[in-house]
């Protein structure tokens, strides 16, 4: 059932269940309900793309997963067990790391110092620079990063793609199991986007679960194994990437639903939003909150 072969490193758990499973989570900010009964799964060795228009609730969803603000209701299962994640530290302890769009790097520190920021290795109370440098070089080599000249370079001197790479390397340095990437290619040029996409693929192949947020459908279809679509706070579908094409994903993002042409499209998520007909009137009846842009109707 997988589209990739998991080769080295951490193999997917023997149970074959998803690493992360959200069932019917809700989140409101005051009177505004941003997430309605959202379900999402992420599997080890898989890239799960999370797509949706602006205001669909992508950021709220990942902030909930990362513990920045806890979900109001619903089930949060990690490695098959229900967990309560109410702070970023709890999420980190489970092995969940988020790379935010602004990367959160210190320009005045070098690569090693950034990778270990907040979790420095110590010997006899002093910084253990040698161990940190060795492990940083190993981690970058493990991610097949060869564009960086020296791990002692200041981050200020790196290109956008290299900075993204450092931020991702920091996320995988800690035996993390789930890495969430928030639009990692948004600000990058063609060549650097390519580098980062290959890196995303390698993360999954090394056995991690990856959730990738992106606005670029070509990119999503290239690297993702599964695509989860949020529309106005509801999960309209989580489908296998190989079962859908560009137009179908755009249709889902903009509120339409899939015509079951080949009959092989597996659709998960709230069923009332799907299978209601071939056209775009499957939009939720309740006035949806936080709609930043009016979605275009697909003819």
């Amino acid at each position, binding site marked *: 059932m997988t589209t990739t072969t998991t080769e080295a490193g951490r193999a997917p758990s023997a149970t074959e269940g998803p690493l992360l499973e959200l069932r019917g989570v809700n989140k409101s900010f005051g009177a505004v309900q941003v997430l309605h009964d959202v379900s999402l799964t992420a599997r080890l060795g898989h890239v799960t793309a999370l797509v949706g228009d602006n205001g669909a609730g992508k950021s709220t969803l990942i902030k909930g997963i990362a513990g920045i603000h806890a979900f109001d209701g619903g089930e949060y299962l990690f490695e098959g067990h229900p967990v309560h994640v109410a702070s*970023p*530290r709890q999420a980190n302890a489970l092995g969940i790391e988020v790379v*935010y769009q*602004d*990367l*959160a*790097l*210190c*320009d*005045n*520190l070098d690569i090693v*110092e950034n990778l270990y*920021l*907040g*979790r*420095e290795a*110590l010997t006899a*109370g*002093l*910084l253990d620079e*040698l161990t940190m*440098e*060795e492990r940083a070089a190993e981690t970058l080599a493990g991610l097949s990063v060869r564009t960086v000249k*020296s791990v*002692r370079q*200041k981050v*200020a*001197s*790196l*290109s*956008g793609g290299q900075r993204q790479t450092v931020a991702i390397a920091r996320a995988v340095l800690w035996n993390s199991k789930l890495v969430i990437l928030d639009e990692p290619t948004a600000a990058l040029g063609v060549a650097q986007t390519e580098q980062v996409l290959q890196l995303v693929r390698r993360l999954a192949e090394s056995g991690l679960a990856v959730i990738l947020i992106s606005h670029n459908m070509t990119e999503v279809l290239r690297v993702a194994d599964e695509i989860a679509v949020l529309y106005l706070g509801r999960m309209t579908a989580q489908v296998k990437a190989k079962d859908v094409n560009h137009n179908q994903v755009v249709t889902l993002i903009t509120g339409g639903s899939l015509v079951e042409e080949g009959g092989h499209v597996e659709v998960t998520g709230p069923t009332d939003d799907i299978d209601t007909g071939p056209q775009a009137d499957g939009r939720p009846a309740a006035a949806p909150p936080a709609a930043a842009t009016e979605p275009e109707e697909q003819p």
Partner: protein
Amino acid sequence: MSQSLSEKELENTLDAPESPGGALAEAVRAYFGRVRGGDVGPLPAILGLVVLLAVFSGLQGNTFTNSFNFANLLIQSAPVIVIAMGIVFVLLIGEIDLSAGWTAGVAGATLGVVCTNHGWPWYLGVVACLATGAAVGLINGLLVAWVGIPSFVVTLAAYLALQGLLLKIIGEGGTIRIQSQTILDVMAKNLPVWLGWVLFVVVVGLYALVTFRQMATRRARGLVTQAPVVWLVKLVCLTLLLGICTYYLSGERSRNPALTSIKGIPIVIPVVLVLLVGFTMLLTRTLFGRHVYAVGGNAEAARRAGINVPRIRLLCFVICSMIAAGAGVLLASRVNSVTPTTGGGETLLYAVGAAVIGGTSLFGGKGRPVDAIIGGLVIAVVANGMGLLNKSAAVVYMVTGVVLLIAAGVDALSRRRAAASGRA
């Protein structure tokens, strides 16, 4: 002794395959690459210092370069240099402490009150003095880090309040004499000549040993390290610089040697060196130091990495004020007394100027304790040299202002350069 040891070790490593000349050229190229990229460090200040020394030596040959004036210049600059080391800590997190000068004054007055008026021994007096500094830093730091008042305003308020407090302690027009001989000796006495040379050998030997071991460990663990020839060149430069200074200070500099003999390294110099090494270790080798740079570089990133940013801010203010209090001891020792103007006047502005001239950024995240020494020497040379040329205080202030402006300009331009080359 330790020198010959390291030379023997050196021969083993010089057999490395790459030619020493090539490695040296490589290191020089890399350095100029960094400078072009905007990472100038203390280079402008060092060049400035060399130019100033040359100009004043040319204009005022004997009086400027004689060893009496040389020692005098070093002693004069010490309190400003020490305060500037403290200022570096707050500048590193992108803040400012305008009250450090008066903190030194109030702490010096505390020393005077407990030692002279209450007869405490000098070491307890120093403890009380440092505690005063810690209290001032705690108040400043809490207001900045937890209440969120801009440091400029908090420390400006402290500047005024401490000035008043000092006046209150000493009384209008009053003075407190410092009678402890130990305290007075710090700024007035010199090491015996032999001890000066021992100190020289120990410093150079330790430097050689520590840096050599660093290099050897890195090489053994397969990490990139500097070429041995680069290490050797650095060591030779340091040895020459310190050797010349020690030799110069070991000569007789009394105008009337028959009456009193003045020679040897002033005691305050090893004191400043110990502070330099201590604070450099604190900033480069400890968790706290790493987090200071992180907070100065990107406070939000530091917060997300789990660093307690308010705590780091608070500690930097406490450290700054405690160092200023230490400088208060030097100020009191220098003039044998504490007056309502101790630590006032241009003390604070010179200290901030020294840190910035030395290459510490006003924008946070960049700076080292050694910057304070280099910048402090630049300011002292300007003041001292102009004074010997019989220029009025008016001219000295104006020139110092221009020097500071140039330094801040270099900082701003190099940042722009770094931004341009970094994100290209």
